[in-house]
């Protein structure tokens, strides 16, 4: 920069506007429409002022706009803090700042804010695509800074872009050292705004007809699982989530039911695996039916739900072990069993009537369950687009519409069972998953969301019954895409007929998984385990810092040596190279050439002091003088000079 107070010219403004617009653009997807219009107008205004060399608007006008915009943002969000309101305000203020940017110093500050704006984009998405786009934005801002710091004339575009790219590329090694070794601490350092994690999808703590159906339309990843041993069969992949105990006639809910420490008396085949859970802003974690351990920072409740201590706001990775086909809860409290029998007396009268009739028909619970499932199997349709249900949804589903999705079947089954006197609860979670052979792991998507039931049988405890399995066994065996009619809408990612598209999708998910595991999910725990693998056990932050400084020092020193090596003046003239080699041979014989000594004088002195060398020195000097100062420039003479120097032995 010539002088920080120097006024901006159009070439500076052009770059500044372009790079800031690039960075701010993704925010347009979640800003109110009028703020987008305002920012576009501000940018266009600054571009016009810069291009036509007009005067910038007065500070009072800008303050007025800032005030009105702040009020507008407050009215839109009911706050000016929080993620969305804060980012919207930041983008507007950046646009206003553009209009009072006169000097190079202001422009530098704006570029810094541009970098800051890059980071705010990561609050919304940290996918690979976002990362690549933001990398391009970072290059653009850096190129803008090169432009600002270039002297008076317009720098060649090539120079500007190359300097930015090379500078950033050469910073990657040091960045990697910092990334891997900078002592990580778990956030947050201060309170997060309430809307920091809104917009994540996942299971809810209530279940009404249609709630899971809406989830199934999303192909977002819920979690990924890597099994240590062989993967269980598809029909055993029941990922247990929130349990629903209470029913109000229409909606099932999962009131917090964590009363005592778990009595893990369950047993069965143990399977070990690692889950990487996408953030969903709720406390529950997912495990195969039935969790055998509680990972750190989590608890298992009496009904074997796995809870995190805090809402899962970041991608969470945990090691898990489960018993397959477990037997558990044979001894259950009266309180729990009563709760699992309760139904509002006036709701769904026909379903309750059916339950009571079944109880009279069968002596044992298994008979009741078998008849109910048989009913489903014979007359019911499994579909993603069930007809809407009215005041008594279970009655209407059972006796008139007879088509529904897993939550309809689970809900109806539970109501009838409870009416028949069998304690029943609803389990929501996920079922199945897609195997990615590329990385040998299982992808469980929101589309795999599922609801089933557990009934309590005397002497056996809680037993899993999946009514959906009775209607559509393929749902459990093969997955959702095979189970629902072809006309039902399903996300593209779930129903893909083309093998090649499927392969592309799995490859992409594999890359996303690696990205998640190593870039986004590089937590304090992962850092510790990585260093342990590298032979540095229980690394304290002091050790880490020391290592960080040493390695960073080495990297910087290497870069410095490489960068400054280019400064060495290199002799390119082969004639001179040959002659310098000749001089070097003489120097080692104690006959160094004086810097002020010409080649002929030098040769004369050498011949005087060492007459025996004269026959060799004389032709070399003659050739050199002829090649360097004479008109002669034949290749043969050069070869002759080089040959003689090579054979010269002082």
């Amino acid at each position, binding site marked *: 920069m010539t002088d920080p107070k120097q006024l901006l010219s159009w070439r500076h403004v052009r770059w500044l506007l372009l790079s800031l617009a690039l960075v701010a653009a993704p925010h347009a997807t979640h800003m109110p429409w009028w703020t987008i219009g305002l920012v576009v107008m501000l940018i266009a205004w600054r571009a016009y002022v810069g291009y036509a060399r007009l005067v910038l608007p007065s500070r009072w006008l800008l303050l007025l706009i800032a005030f009105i915009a702040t009020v507008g943002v407050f009215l839109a969000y009911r706050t000016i803090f929080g993620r969305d309101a804060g980012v919207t305000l930041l983008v507007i203020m950046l646009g206003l700042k553009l209009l009072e940017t006169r000097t190079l110093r202001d422009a530098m500050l704006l570029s810094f804010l541009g970098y800051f704006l890059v980071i705010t984009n990561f609050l919304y998405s940290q996918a690979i695509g976002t990362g690549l786009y933001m990398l391009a934005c970072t290059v653009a801002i850096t190129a803008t800074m090169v432009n600002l710091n270039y002297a008076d004339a317009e720098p060649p575009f090539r120079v500007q872009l190359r300097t930015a790219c090379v500078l950033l590329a050469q910073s990657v090694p040091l960045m990697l050292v910092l990334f891997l070794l900078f002592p990580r601490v778990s956030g*947050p350092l201060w309170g997060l705004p309430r809307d920091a994690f809104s917009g994540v999808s996942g299971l809810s703590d209530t279940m009404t007809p249609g709630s899971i159906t809406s989830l199934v339309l999303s192909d977002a990843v819920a979690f990924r699982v890597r099994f240590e041993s062989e993967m269980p069969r598809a029909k055993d992949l029941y990922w247990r989530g929130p349990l629903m105990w209470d029913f109000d006639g229409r909606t099932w809910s999962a009131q917090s039911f964590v009363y005592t420490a778990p009595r893990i008396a369950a047993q069965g085949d143990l399977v070990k695996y690692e889950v990487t859970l996408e953030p969903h802003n709720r406390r529950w974690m997912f495990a195969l039916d039935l969790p055998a351990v509680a990972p750190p920072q989590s608890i298992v409740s009496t009904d074997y739900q796995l809870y995190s201590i805090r809402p899962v706001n970041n991608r969470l990775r945990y090691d898990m072990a489960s018993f397959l086909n477990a037997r558990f809860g044979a001894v259950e409290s009266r309180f729990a069993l009563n709760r699992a029998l309760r139904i509002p007396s006036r709701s769904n009268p026909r379903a309750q009537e059916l339950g009571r009739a079944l109880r009279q028909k069968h002596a044992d619970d298994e008979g009741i369950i078998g008849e109910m499932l048989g009913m489903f199997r014979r007359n019911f349709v499994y579909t993603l687009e069930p007809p809407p249900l009215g005041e008594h949804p279970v009655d209407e589903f059972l006796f008139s519409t007879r088509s529904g999705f897993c939550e309809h079947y689970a809900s109806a089954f539970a109501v009838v069972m409870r009416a028949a006197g069998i304690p029943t609860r609803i389990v929501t979670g996920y079922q199945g998953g897609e195997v990615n052979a590329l990385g040998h792991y299982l992808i469980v998507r929101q589309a795999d969301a599922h609801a089933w039931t557990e009934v309590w049988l005397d002497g056996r405890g809680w037993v899993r019954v999946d009514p959906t399995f009775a209607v559509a066994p393929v749902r459990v065996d093969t997955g959702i895409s095979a189970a629902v009619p072809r006309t039902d809408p399903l996300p593209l990612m779930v129903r893909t007929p083309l093998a090649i598209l499927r392969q592309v999708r799995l490859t992409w998910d594999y890359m996303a998984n690696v990205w998640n595991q190593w870039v986004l999910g590089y937590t304090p725990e992962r850092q510790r385990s990585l260093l342990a693998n590298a032979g540095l056990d229980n690394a304290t932050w002091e050790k880490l810092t020391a290592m960080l400084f040493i390695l960073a020092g080495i990297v910087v020193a290497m870069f410095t040596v490489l960068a400054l090596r280019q400064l060495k003046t290199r002799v390119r003239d082969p004639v001179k190279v040959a002659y310098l080699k000749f001089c070097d041979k003489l120097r080692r014989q104690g006959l160094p050439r004086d810097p002020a000594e010409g080649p002929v004088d030098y040769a004369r002195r050498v011949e005087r002091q060492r007459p025996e060398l004269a026959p060799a020195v004389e032709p070399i000097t003659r050739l050199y003088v002829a090649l360097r100062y004479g008109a002669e420039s034949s290749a043969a003479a050069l070869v002759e000079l080089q040959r003689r120097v090579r054979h010269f032995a002082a």
Partner: protein
Amino acid sequence: MYAALRNRFFTWLFRWRGPESGVIVLGQRRVFILPTRQGLVFALILLVMLAGSINYSLGLGFVLTFLLGAASVNAMIYTFRNLANLRITGGRTRPVFAGDTAFFALHIENRSDTDRYAIGLTHDRRQASFVDVMARSGTSATAGVHAPRRGILRPGRLILFTRFPLGFYYAWAYVDLDLQCIVYPRPAATGLPMPPAAPSAGAGAERGQGQEDFSGMRPYHRGDSPRHVAWKVAARDQGLHTKQFTGRAETELWLDWALLPSQMGAEERLSLLARWVLDAHAAGLTYGLRLPNTTLEMAAGEAQRDRCLEALALHNTDRRFDDAPRPGSSRQRS
């Protein structure tokens, strides 16, 4: 006291060593570097970004923060490298009149394989000129220095600096080459008329300022012949002017210090003589210059003009223009 201590400290710190002649190579010990205010602000912003990344557990936030942190460390080496190992030689400097700005040219040679961009040259840290020096080539940069008085002007330490590429660092080197510029006395705006030219020996009685050929105009002085007043000019309300004519004959015009009124100060006399030299040259006259210690013989043309102005510039100064570099100041480095 403070200033003296500061000066001694800086002399030691920056290895100031007085004017040098020949080539100055900006070796690594001659280039200094400090972060700029912008650089410090950026460090602050990086800290905020780091805190944000920790708070929101933004994996990519860490990547960006560390990438920019690494880039700002590397930028230091870039900025340093942009200046290091340049070879500086002094160039020619055109004489100026007192009160004007002298432009000292430096030739900057870049023998390395790296292009150097936005190299600034300044004398007073306020105004700078910028050049790019491509790999294996050279270019000239000029520093403007105000020349207040006649005599020899030495610019002293010039500063070569750069902030390229990001402006986070300011790298600079002091270049104290043995440069000098002759500063002519400022020509008097108006003054006494030129002395009459005497007929040269053996050339008859014709006057240097004859009446045959019109040579120019000068403001009217009392006593000028009314026949030579430019009445057409006066009619345009531009004041009285006297038309001057040159005789074809050889004349001898002596611009003589001793002829000037005794109440005039030395600088005033030099100033007036400078005016006369310029006027005489403009009129194409042959003239000589007599100063108390110097006499320049009759001649005409640009060389005579420059010789005379130089003599006026150096009058009663203790140095001549081309004197040898002072002892101890000719440390040539390579």
